[in-house]
């Protein structure tokens, strides 16, 4: 029979005296993340690899410092790189609905925007002044007068020719008419006078008038052409004057961008446009607003009216920033990633232009790094698809969701896409990585670098000291009181407990930081300048006290007898199993009564939990293994004539996991052998078909759960827990449990096989147990054969018809 474990094996202590410091203030804080060598290596590779598709996926559970490690690495790398180019959107003079994207060297976009604003002001002043000069006015008047005189001359010439034929050229409301002069020479002939003329004379007049009308028509036909010529001359004059005023200003600005041909090309286009739209500059900037049916149209906020087309919309500027950008987008919606096109209300309609294009996270991170929470990206409609499209095409195309889905048919902007060079780091749970890998064919092509975060680090002899430096780093970062060595030792022990392993330390940074903050709070409350182990313990106790309401209620129900759990005496076919309940971030162990019933039959071992659809698949598998064990151990060459049922008594929720399979087997063997089981012992561990007891999870919580119940009822010295041998390394039990074991009031037994467990629980040798079981099963088999023989002799009777 195995001896109980010694107290030294129940908790691996951290000796404060071996840490070698008085308080954490003496320590060199540890930067980085211990135990994350794999993740750091992957990060370095992913960041350094500048090939297509080598974006990163940082995976691991929440609270393990994924964000801070990723951000720290990216910022370090970004600091070594040059800041990327600035980007602006400007008016596209050729295709106004496709604003042009202009690239400028870092830090020059704002200066360019200001320079353009100044240019527009200067152009307005200079062009308006040029049109006010006497020279312009005189030349303008000369052209207008020339046109008027040309028209007048043509009409006068015609009038003279008509007069020679006795015909007057008369101005009518809409044109001209021709009529004979009176013989008296005092104007147009009266109708009566015309009527008195000889018919031949009348015909002559009408013939002449007909000819002159044709000539008049020819003259009038010429007039639009003359007006066009005059207008062309006026336009030419305007262009000439504008060119003179504008060229020097624009050329001066162009000279400042001699190194940027595309900016120069844009300015050249601005120059042409000013010539074509000189009239715009001749009007006062704040003159009358445009009207619609006489109603003044409001101008958009900040609008410079007609000069808006020369504005520069600085999308991204890297003024005063060193290095490449590292952007974290907390709300990665479609618009937040790709940018958006805003609108302003005008007369009840929504209008937009290139100045209302806004940058998205991809724009801001362009030339650097973008960190995104994958779950948030996947939760936002169409954000994931948009992100992949941008990464595949290497461009950011600002499109509204309406455009994307084709549900808007109104005319909108289609800004020129901006080339994209960004390294994206997705942060998320492992399950999301594997799901995406399995179900999204594009995912593996785009996110080739998996950055897998460890959840714990090894706890070798030197690792406690290393971890102390990590604690010191947290203390410094969070601006907390220093911890003395005993407090650090307590923290380290807790982190080992959190890791569920005496030989590992949890690197769940969030939990560590929370513990340090809360210990600091209790030290502050107590008026201490240095955090001691008592403060750490108080923080831990307070954490549990805030969360363990349900644990208390469950234990109360057991103590009051509502839930039946024996902690003393013996009973056949009944064992105390142990389960772990996880509620939020608090988990605790609690005992469960497991009972077995056996009888002659052929159904094998029946899992009542599964029959009632309350058992999970792993639990069912554990029970099926028991059948395998029984068959292999007791009936390899004969039929197993057994029907056995197993149940978690008073279990009203689901049961999952196979950690109770050893307890179930003990109950089953007890039922078959008739050997009673000690109720002062609780059991945990899974078994295989050979009867080996295997490791399970949550061993510390399970032991403590049974210990708390026993203590409540009074520790007898007989009570204890049977655990798998393989779980001894995981033991990091509470101090009070270790103390009780040291005082002989409680025991923890480790077993490697079912035989050892049965001997502990029954006090009967394993061979004896096996013999009894075998005898019982043989008895069942014999009876089964007898029943079968009787059944064969009974004649067949047909069933009654209804």
């Amino acid at each position, binding site marked *: 029979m195995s001896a109980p474990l010694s107290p030294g094996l129940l908790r691996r202590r951290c000796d404060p005296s071996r840490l070698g410091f008085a308080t954490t203030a003496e320590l060199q804080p540890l930067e980085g993340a211990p135990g994350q060598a794999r993740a750091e290596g992957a990060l370095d590779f992913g960041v350094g690899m500048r090939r297509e598709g080598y974006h990163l996926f940082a995976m691991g559970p929440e609270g393990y410092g994924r964000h801070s490690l990723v951000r720290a690495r990216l910022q370090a790398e970004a600091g070594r790189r040059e800041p990327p180019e600035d980007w602006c959107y400007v008016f596209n003079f050729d295709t106004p609905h496709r604003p042009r994207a202009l690239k400028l060297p870092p830090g020059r976009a704002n200066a360019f925007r200001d320079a353009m604003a100044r240019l527009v002001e200067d152009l307005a002043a200079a062009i308006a002044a040029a049109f006010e000069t006497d020279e312009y006015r005189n030349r303008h*008047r000369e052209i207008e007068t020339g046109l008027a005189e040309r028209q007048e001359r043509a009409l006068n010439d015609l009038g003279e020719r008509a007069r020679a034929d006795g015909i*007057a050229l*008369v*101005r*009518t*409301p*809409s*044109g*001209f*008419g*021709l*009529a004979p002069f009176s013989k008296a020479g005092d*104007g*147009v*002939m*009266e*109708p009566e006078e*015309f009527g008195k003329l000889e018919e031949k004379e009348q015909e002559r007049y*009408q013939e002449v*008038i007909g000819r002159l*009308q044709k000539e*008049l*028509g020819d003259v*009038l*036909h010429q*007039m639009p052409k003359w007006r066009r010529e005059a207008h062309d001359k006026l336009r030419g004059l305007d262009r000439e004057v504008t060119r003179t005023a504008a060229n020097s200003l624009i050329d001066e600005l162009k000279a400042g961008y001699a190194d940027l041909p595309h900016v120069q090309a844009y300015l050249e286009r601005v120059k042409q446009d000013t010539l074509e739209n000189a009239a715009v500059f001749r009007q006062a900037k704040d003159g009358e607003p445009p009207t619609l049916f006489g109603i003044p149209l409001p101008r958009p906020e900040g609008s410079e009216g007609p000069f808006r087309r020369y504005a520069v919309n600085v999308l991204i500027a890297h003024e005063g920033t060193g290095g490449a950008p590292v952007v974290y987008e907390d709300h990665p919606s479609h618009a937040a990633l790709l940018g958006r096109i805003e609108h302003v209300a005008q007369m009840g309609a929504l209008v937009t232009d290139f100045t209302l294009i806004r940058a998205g996270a991809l724009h801001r991170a362009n030339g650097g790094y973008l960190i995104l929470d994958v779950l948030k990206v996947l939760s936002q409609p169409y954000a994931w698809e948009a992100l992949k499209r941008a990464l595949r095409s290497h461009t950011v195309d600002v499109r509204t969701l309406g455009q994307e889905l084709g549900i808007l048919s109104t005319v909108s902007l289609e800004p020129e896409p901006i080339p994209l060079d960004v390294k994206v780091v997705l942060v998320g749970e492992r399950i999301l990585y594997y799901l995406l890998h399995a179900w999204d064919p594009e995912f593996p092509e785009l996110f080739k670098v998996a950055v897998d975060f460890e959840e714990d680090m090894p706890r070798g002899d030197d690792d406690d000291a290393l971890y102390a430096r990590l604690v010191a780093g947290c203390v410094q970062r969070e601006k907390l009181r220093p911890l003395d060595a005993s407090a650090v030792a307590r923290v380290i022990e807790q982190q080992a407990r959190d890791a569920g392993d005496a030989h590992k330390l949890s690197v769940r940074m969030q939990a560590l930081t929370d513990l340090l903050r809360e210990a600091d709070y209790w030290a502050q409350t107590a008026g201490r300048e240095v955090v001691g182990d008592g403060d750490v313990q108080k923080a831990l106790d307070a954490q549990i006290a805030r969360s363990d309401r349900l644990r208390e209620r469950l234990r109360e129900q057991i103590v009051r007898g509502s839930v039946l759990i024996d902690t003393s005496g013996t009973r056949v076919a009944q064992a105390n199993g142990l389960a772990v309940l996880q509620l939020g971030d608090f988990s605790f162990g609690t005992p469960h009564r497991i009972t077995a019933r056996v009888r002659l039959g052929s159904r094998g071992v029946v899992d009542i939990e599964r029959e009632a659809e309350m058992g999970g698949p792993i639990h069912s598998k554990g029970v099926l293994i028991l059948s395998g064990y029984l068959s292999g151990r007791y009936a390899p060459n004969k039929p197993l004539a057994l029907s056995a049922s197993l149940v978690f008594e008073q279990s009203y929720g689901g049961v999952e996991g196979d950690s109770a399979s050893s307890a179930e087997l003990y109950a089953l063997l007890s039922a078959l052998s008739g050997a009673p089981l000690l109720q002062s012992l609780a059991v945990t561990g899974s078994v295989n078909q050979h009867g080996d007891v295997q490791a399970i999870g949550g061993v510390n919580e399970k032991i403590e759960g049974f210990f708390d119940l026993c203590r409540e009822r009074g520790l007898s010295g007989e009570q204890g827990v049977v655990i798998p041998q393989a779980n001894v390394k995981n033991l990091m039990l509470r101090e009070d449990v270790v103390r009780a074991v040291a005082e002989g009031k409680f025991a923890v037994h480790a077993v490697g096989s079912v035989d050892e467990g049965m001997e502990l629980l029954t006090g009967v040798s394993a061979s004896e147990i096996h013999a009894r079981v075998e005898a019982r099963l043989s008895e069942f088999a014999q009876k089964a054969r007898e029943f079968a023989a009787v059944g064969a002799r009974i004649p067949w009777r047909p069933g009654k018809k209804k």
Partner: protein
Amino acid sequence: MASREEEVRIRRVIACFSPGYGGRPELVARLAQELEAELLGLFIEDVELLRFASLPFAREIGIASVQARSMDVASLERQLRAQARALEQALEAILGPGPTGWSLRVERSSPLVAIEAVLAQVLEPALLIPPGGRLAGERRRVKKKELTKEALKQWLAAGRPVIILPE
């Protein structure tokens, strides 16, 4: 620098309008406002035109359409009434009941006779704008007695405004 109109305080603006000469009543009204002078609009229904319209073969060739259309007195009368009404509305829109006094007179006669009749009643100094006359440019100054019938005829043909000074 003071303009020449300011040197001579113009008390009246006499703007003549006639069918076929167009004219810019809005500009005339604003000019009168600027000069703080009373505006007298004179719409002349040219008798020559009426006589032309009564001829059986009278045809009008439109400036814009260059199409010949028959003309008769009734349609001409309608056009004249419409023009006079539009003129009055244009002046009313700008001057309305404001400080600048204004009136519109419709005369059916020859332009020369109508202007002579107005000049006989008007107090100088006045700015006389002929039908279709341009507002911009140099403005001649004449004394009233210098405006003989012959001079008036030439001046009408030239289509330039003239400032009429007292004797």
